[in-house]
């Protein structure tokens, strides 16, 4: 009945499928729906369960016998605990320093070099491009890198995470590709008006390249936030540790973080250690989940695939 009264909706629906295509079979639709639902749930269920468990009281966790799936109560004590003890909040600060400083530095270096390389025919253009492209083909090797970083005195400094990752040739090529797609007339006319390269970059090229800079910035930021192994290599003092190290220590190594997880010392109302663990997971997870949707529409729009296809 409603379908009859509302023919336009049906027509619109039909219009999306080309006339020559046979109507979908019921079984096909079911299988498709099941597979896609399964894929989506495989991502959402763990995130949900971890979130719920981190906000659960000790009782709720005990009743569930482990990870909680259906929220029963809302308890913030796990978060209060991890942020009042120094370890997690210090690691968050360290990671934020590395991420923010690193991303800014990386973006400046990458954008400048990408612009410098965006004019085929300029002086040393080909050798310079080759210089960057060779880094794709052969990596420097773990041990020599370690020796260089420690010889520079960067050990136990957060710069040991920031500097080696500050220029990624892939990102550089992505940005360069985008710059080269900007109409040449725009740049020529600015040059005729007497603008130098620096002015052209900041006034004309960059405002047109917000999307690609955002995506590349996200890549760098995520890379820095997720940095784990280099931190294991270079940061030995626990006060320098970054969030990934803390996460690893709490959960995978099953270590009891200082002061947490020893109920007798904390008295009766100590929150469940599983909630504390999951709260740490959420702290590591949240920045990614928050930043990502802002950038995601750009890479579906084709910034990345465009660059991939050259």
């Amino acid at each position, binding site marked *: 009945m409603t379908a009859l009264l509302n023919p336009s909706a049906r027509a619109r629906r039909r219009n999306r499928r080309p006339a020559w295509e046979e109507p979908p079979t019921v079984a096909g639709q079911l299988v498709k729906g099941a597979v896609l639902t399964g894929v989506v749930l495989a991502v959402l269920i763990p995130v949900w369960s971890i979130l719920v468990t981190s906000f659960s009281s000790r009782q709720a966790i005990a009743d569930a016998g482990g990870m909680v799936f259906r929220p029963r109560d809302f308890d913030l004590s796990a978060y209060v605990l991890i942020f009042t003890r120094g370890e997690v909040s210090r690691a968050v600060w360290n990671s934020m320093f590395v991420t923010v400083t690193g991303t800014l530095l990386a973006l400046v270096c990458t954008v400048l070099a990408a612009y410098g390389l965006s004019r085929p025919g300029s002086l040393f253009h080909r050798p310079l491009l080759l210089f960057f492209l060779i880094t794709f083909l052969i990596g420097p090797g773990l041990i020599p890198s370690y020796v*260089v970083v420690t010889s520079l005195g960067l050990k136990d400094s957060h710069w040991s995470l920031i500097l080696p990752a500050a220029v990624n040739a892939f990102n550089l090529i992505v940005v360069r590709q985008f710059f080269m797609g900007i109409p040449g007339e725009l740049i020529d006319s600015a040059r005729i008006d007497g603008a130098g390269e620096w002015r052209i970059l900041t006034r004309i090229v960059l405002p047109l390249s917000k999307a690609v800079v955002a995506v590349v910035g996200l890549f760098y930021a995520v*890379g820095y936030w997720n940095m784990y192994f280099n931190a294991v290599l270079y940061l030995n003092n626990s006060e320098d540790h970054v969030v990934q190290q803390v996460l690893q220590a709490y959960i995978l190594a099953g270590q009891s973080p200082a002061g947490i997880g020893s109920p007798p010392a904390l008295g009766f109302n100590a929150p469940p250690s599983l909630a504390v663990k999951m709260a740490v997971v959420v702290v590591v997870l949240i920045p990614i989940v928050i930043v990502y949707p802002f950038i995601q529409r750009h890479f579906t729009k084709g910034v990345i695939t465009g660059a991939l296809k050259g």
Partner: protein
Amino acid sequence: MTGKTGVAGPAQARPLPVQATPEPQAAPPPARRGMTLRAKFHRDRALLLMTVPAVLLLTVFHYLPLLGNVVAFMDYDQWAGDSAVEAIVNSPFIGFTNFAELFEDSQFWDALRNTLTLTAFQLVFFFPLPIALAILLNSVLSPRLRGFIQTVVYLPHFFSWVLVVTFFVQMLGGAGLLATVLRDNGMEPWNIMGNPDTFILLVSTQGLWKDVGWGTIIFLAALTAIDQSLYEAAASDGATRWRRLWHVTLPGLRPVVVLLLILQLGNALTVGFEQFYLQREAVGRQAAEVLDTYVYYLGLATQDYGVGTAAGLFKAVIGLFLILIANRLARRFGEEGVFVRS
């Protein structure tokens, strides 16, 4: 795509460095042939200056360590001098002795075998999955629903390995959600996290969970590039949907598939580091040792810099050859190579 992740060193591998020398497109400098070097320098000095920070960083953190690989041919003693340079100068060259020692180490062969097994396994069982998912996604008609699914499935690509392994422990581990659900329903839970026999399946599944969505991006782009009139023509010739998939969609995807296979081949010895490092304790060295972790444990944990560097260099050089060979093969089969010579 599956399970492949950054290399162990500071450099991070990203999906696809494609087409090395693009055609000049925009803003060519005012064409003046026969300019002197001096005049060219004067014209381009700002551009050159802009590349300086990046060149400096790569020189120090990429090319300098690359040179440091000479240690592989030395009896390197890190205490032979006050600085690394001095130590290198004071250490004697011993030719290929480190490599000989490496090839005599049965653990090295274990690591190599594990690495190659994983690569082959993931290539056969998991390489096709992003393609299938992309085709499936492409057939979802509602753009809003498709956008939602894409948003969700891309997300795990941005998780660190620590986070991914944590997720798996909390979901599938002994005290995880799955075990809890099974126990509640009177079934016997099993712990797949610490089982060396199924480790290959576990790490591949983790890689798949992390990157299957991300892997669809490039295939989705290739799918939209397929000429829609081909489908219509095929359909009017009586081709069913499966025939169209076989004769139109898959040939349309072929260049991208070849491209990714080339890159995959170049990465055959790189299966990731952190994923194995993190789970090594749980399943033991025998199952979890891959080339990158071998380099780390041999070189840094036991301080055998010479042999460790030799192992790393061996891997890097083989990887370089693999990618160059694959590129040549692809061109022979009429596909565009990854690195286009011009």
